[in-house]
């Protein structure tokens, strides 16, 4: 009746996950109860859960990422404490539990923190920067988000019901095959990534189409803001790479569920095929994450330097070059697995070539700052901190791309330090920069600068204290994923790293405090102009938060830095020179499709993990029914009458006139 599921799935003998799970459960129930009692449920349902507005969906993505950051972060804290205390002792975590923690940590951080964070920011901002009303496929957009949430939910369920994979975040066979991992851990891993992967693919298709087909009048390719370019590159990579992940996981699942022989040791299966496939996805994946961050830094650096981006065209070229080259270097992830010197040399050189366009970008940012009027607001701090950090990470990456060096450093703590260096210093700093930069756009008030700066400095220092020791430990020969060890020389570095982790935690706390304080003081921090940073691209041309339709009129773009040009022109003429007549606007209607889809996907995923076949069928039928009902809909748009558009827009124009006359006075 319930497949493999029975009471033994609940780990009654392990206090840590049980207590953690209980706390989370109580927290969720408390929030739910509060929502219901206070009567917020209808509001949540109609304004958020069923919303197909790209801005709302973007915010929900970022919220999901933030919550999962706390989850992945607590795993990290546990690991750092373990390695600090596990010198010549077992530490406080049983080995199989430790293995689950590092696997869950990697999986969560990449798929449910970094990905939703950057996708959320792209969703929120790209249509605004392109000067359009929405993404290409609004309802699909909601489906994509909710499927991502399903994946995250399944991973979290594994904390209490059953177990998570013990195989690392890429589940290499043969360890992940049924014979070595008979439990449900790998199934949790594979199904949650399969489901959220579909969501990611949908988001990718949506954003590619949006950038290529939905630009406002006059927005030629070479007038798009840099963030739109990196969004395009990143989503092209999603469309090209995520199907590889889907296929690879499908093969692994076929091996596990039906006894196929793709990657088994018996009957001719080929483990190296998994390595090739997973890294053909995995290497582009790191650029899927970091390219949007590059875009955010470009926007931030140019805005806070008060200058147009230096070398715009070379930046575009560098972005697209990275997009292409990142597909040609995957093999550097297994230099040590016997491909032979020629192959290694070719892939080594190809990997180092990526450093060239990346270097171009760094120089462009520096030259943008050079001679500019720099304002050290919080987003700018993150951008500068990123440049310092990322250069170190890039250099160690180039070092790893030298095959002989990699033979020594592969699978060592040095590698761990490298990829945290690029992923935290690149992606996460970028996400935070974007968060601080666009928060006023999304909510209409700024974040508190004092707490923001404190958060930056604690995170920045904490990062270095945590990860620089790992480089050293790696060079002293410490391998990754150690549950305990006996080498005295490593111990001090592990203790320093744990202290660094504590500093990082203070950074996170500052960030939470920043949000709380800012929400409390929101009236004082209110931004009525919609343009708090003196921005340059179109998202600042509308009010904050923008109306559902984004722009009352489709903007007409005349050059790079579209909004900056408008402001310059507006100072010469008057802003309201000739507002054309307002018109009715059609917008897509809210739809529960995404949520319902995800509901059935959760049921199906859970049932598949536990081999509860009748429930699988039920979930599948439900999903199909949702599809048919959605396909049967008659009206998917509603009309905002011209009068309402006019009323909303007039407020915005008033505020903006004040802004322009003030700017004129300066």
């Amino acid at each position: 009746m319930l497949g493999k599921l029975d009471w033994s799935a609940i780990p009654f003998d392990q206090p840590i996950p049980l207590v953690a799970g209980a706390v989370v459960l109580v927290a969720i129930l408390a929030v739910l109860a509060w929502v219901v009692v206070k009567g917020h449920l209808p509001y949540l349902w109609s304004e958020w859960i069923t919303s197909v507005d790209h801005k709302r969906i973007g915010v929900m993505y970022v919220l999901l990422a933030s919550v999962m950051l706390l989850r992945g972060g607590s795993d990290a804290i546990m690991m750092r404490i373990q390695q600090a205390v596990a010198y010549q002792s077992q530490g406080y975590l049983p080995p199989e539990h430790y293995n689950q923690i590092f696997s869950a940590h990697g999986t969560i951080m990449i798929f449910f923190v970094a990905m939703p964070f950057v996708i959320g920011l792209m969703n929120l901002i790209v249509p605004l920067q392109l000067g359009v009303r929405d993404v290409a496929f609004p309802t699909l957009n909601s489906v994509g988000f909710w499927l991502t949430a399903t994946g995250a939910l399944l991973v979290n369920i594994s904390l209490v019901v059953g177990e998570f994979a013990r195989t690392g975040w890429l589940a290499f066979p043969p360890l992940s095959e049924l014979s070595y991992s008979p439990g449900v851990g790998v199934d949790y891993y594979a199904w949650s990534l399969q489901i959220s992967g579909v969501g990611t693919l949908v988001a990718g298709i949506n954003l590619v189409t949006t950038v290529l087909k939905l630009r406002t009048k006059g927005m030629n390719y070479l007038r798009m803001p840099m963030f739109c370019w990196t969004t395009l590159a990143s989503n092209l990579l999603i469309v090209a790479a995520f199907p590889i992940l889907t296929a690879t996981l499908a093969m692994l699942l076929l091996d596990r569920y039906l006894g196929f022989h793709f990657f088994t040791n018996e009957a001719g299966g080929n483990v190296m095929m998994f390595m090739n496939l997973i890294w053909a996805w995995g290497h582009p994946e790191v650029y899927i994450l970091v390219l949007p961050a590059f875009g955010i830094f470009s926007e931030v650096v140019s805005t806070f330097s008060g200058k147009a981006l230096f070398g715009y065209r070379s930046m575009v070229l560098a972005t697209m070059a990275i997009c292409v080259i990142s597909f040609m270097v995957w093999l550097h992830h297994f230099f040590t697995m016997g491909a032979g010197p020629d192959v290694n040399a070719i892939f080594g050189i190809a990997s180092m070539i990526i450093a060239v366009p990346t270097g171009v970008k760094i120089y462009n940012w520096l030259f943008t700052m050079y001679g500019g009027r720099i304002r050290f607001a919080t987003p700018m701090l993150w951008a500068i901190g990123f440049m310092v950090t990322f250069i170190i990470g890039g250099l160690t990456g180039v070092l790893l791309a030298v095959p002989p060096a990699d033979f020594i450093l592969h699978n060592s703590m040095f590698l761990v330090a490298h990829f945290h260096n690029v992923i935290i210093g690149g992606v996460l700093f970028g996400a935070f920069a974007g968060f601080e930069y666009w928060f006023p756009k999304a909510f209409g008030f700024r974040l508190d600068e004092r707490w923001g700066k404190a958060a930056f400095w604690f995170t920045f220092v904490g990062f270095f204290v945590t990860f620089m020791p790992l480089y050293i430990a790696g060079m002293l020969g410490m391998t990754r994923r150690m549950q305990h060890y006996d080498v005295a020389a490593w111990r001090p570095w592990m203790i320093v790293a744990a202290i660094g982790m504590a500093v990082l935690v203070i950074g996170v706390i500052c960030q939470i405090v920043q949000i709380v304080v800012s929400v409390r003081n929101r009236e004082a921090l209110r931004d009525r102009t919609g343009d708090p940073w003196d921005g340059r691209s179109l998202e600042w041309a509308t009010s904050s938060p923008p109306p559902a339709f984004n722009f009352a009129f489709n903007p007409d773009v005349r050059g790079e830095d579209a909004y900056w040009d408008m402001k310059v022109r507006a100072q010469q003429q008057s802003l309201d020179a000739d507002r054309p007549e307002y018109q009715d606007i059609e917008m897509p209607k809210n739809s529960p499709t995404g949520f319902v889809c995800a509901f059935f996907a959760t049921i199906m995923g859970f049932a598949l993990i536990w081999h509860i076949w009748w429930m699988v069928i039920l979930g599948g039928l439900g999903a199909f029914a949702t599809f048919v009902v959605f396909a049967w809909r008659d009206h998917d748009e509603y009309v905002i009458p011209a009068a309402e558009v006019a009323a909303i827009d007039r407020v915005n124009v008033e505020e903006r006139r004040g802004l322009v006359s003030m700017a004129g006075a300066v």
Partner: protein
Amino acid sequence: MAMTATAGHAHADPHHIGLVIEHPGPASKRTVTAYGFWIFLLSDIVMFSCFFAAYAVLVGQTAGGPKAAEIFEPRYVAIETVCLLLSSFTCGMASIAADVRNRFWFYLGMTVTCVLGLIFLVLEFREFANLVARGYGPTRSAFLTAFFSLVGCHGLHVSAGVLWLLTMMAQVYAKGFRADILRRMLCFALFWHALDIIWVAVFSVVYLLGSAV
């Protein structure tokens, strides 16, 4: 939607001196839908190529089981191929009929497409069932694993296509040739033709090259 070529706004935009093609604004809904669906199809083809790659890697790994040449029945495969190619043609007829809003030819085209698709599926199913009955199921060897997965994946796509086809017919029956229905019909046709192209690749790589192994 004419592209207008104008002189660049040299004052606002120093890079764009000379002739600039001005972007006319967002594309029509039909274009956007078809374009997005194209991109989906490309990603689907990437997914297929992974299974092709796996087949290429594993085709020699028979683990003492049968080789490719020993199990294929060219006659069935030939009929399957003809069915699928014909169905692409009839699907094209149905699309044209939809564009000129001719219900009779639309239903006829779709019905024939559906029947041909079903024949294809039945033949494929028989091929699979025969192999399994002879003890050559996908668990027998890595080669058979790759074979069943690649061909089966295509078969699953065709099955999904048939379901979609029936939904399309029902939609036209209930709602007529509305603009959104026509957009969906466009996507369906793209999907069906793409399956044809993939089948041509399957036919060449699996059956033609495979018979030589």
